């Protein structure tokens, strides 16, 4: 039997023509999944943790409230749309926001409460009473999800 001599073949150059396509695909993935944070948090908040969580699908039907504590004098602060508001104004501002939505969607309006876990319930209860006064019944307590 005769064997053919294996010839040394020069390494063929790999085509990199499809590299941009791959990168673009990744790029589009990130562009689509990116959620641009619309508001800058002005408070440092450590959310409580929970397991039984749900997601909100329609983010435009929500208003986020950040509730934290001033570290110096321990006065509770509420941030909404890049400014601090008082509990008394809260109901009015949020109902205005709800009124700006199309009428068929107003029932789905949800207030997302992003509050620090060390806050006393006093503050949260006051916010809830205020929301109830203005018929803003749907509420979500934002949490950090625990993984199983």
């Amino acid at each position, binding site marked *: 039997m005769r064997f053919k001599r294996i010839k040394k073949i020069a390494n063929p150059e790999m085509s990199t023509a499809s590299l941009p396509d791959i990168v673009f695909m990744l790029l589009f993935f*990130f562009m689509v999944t990116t959620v641009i944070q619309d508001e800058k948090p002005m408070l440092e908040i450590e959310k409580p943790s929970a397991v*039984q969580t749900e997601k909100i699908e329609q983010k435009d039907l929500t208003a986020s409230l950040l509730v934290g504590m001033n570290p110096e004098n321990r006065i509770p602060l509420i941030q909404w749309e890049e400014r601090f508001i008082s509990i008394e104004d809260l109901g009015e501002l949020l109902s205005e926001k709800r009124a700006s939505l199309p009428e068929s969607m107003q029932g789905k309006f949800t207030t997302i409460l992003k509050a620090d876990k060390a806050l006393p319930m006093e503050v949260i209860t006051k916010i809830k009473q205020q929301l*109830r006064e203005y018929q803003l019944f749907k*509420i979500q*307590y934002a949490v950090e999800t625990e993984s199983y």
Partner: protein
Amino acid sequence: MKSTNRQSPAINAGSMADIAFLLLVFFLVTTTVTKDEGLNRILPPKSEDLGPIPQRNVLEILVNKHNQLLVEGHFTEIENLRATALEFILNQENEPHLPQKKIVTIDELGTIAISKQVISIQNDALTDYGTYVAIQDALSGAYLDARNELSQEHFNKSYSELIREKDLDKVKAIREAIPQRISEAEPNF
């Protein structure tokens, strides 16, 4: 003038990858994956008068300012609340200190006995919000367990599976049989 039909020269696409990478890196760096999840609740309307409720139908949870729990008069760790609440919601043994049952007919489920349970939370003004959320989480878990159990019994499938399969009629039936009734006592501070 002579117009020659010249072939357009091919554009070098070699730098395309560099541009795309640059954009990609930019998005990678600026992306903050925000996981917006939480516990959904519906606040009760202002004047909610349930009328007198027999003591046995209410699971009373008291929380003090040191974040300690008193469930039906017993000190309870928050880890055990889920199991306690589940036992309360289902009352499978028909025990006299657990909720009464009422016979109802629900589509999909037929005639079943459902418990008239209500869970009541009363917290102190200085209870931590974190503890409150932990309690809410435990109660949600207990309701989920109860619903899973009922669903397994009737449809041979857990409630979570029903939701995943979007079997809305069955989901509704289960929800009707075990409604999530968490009442929050009017604060006295």
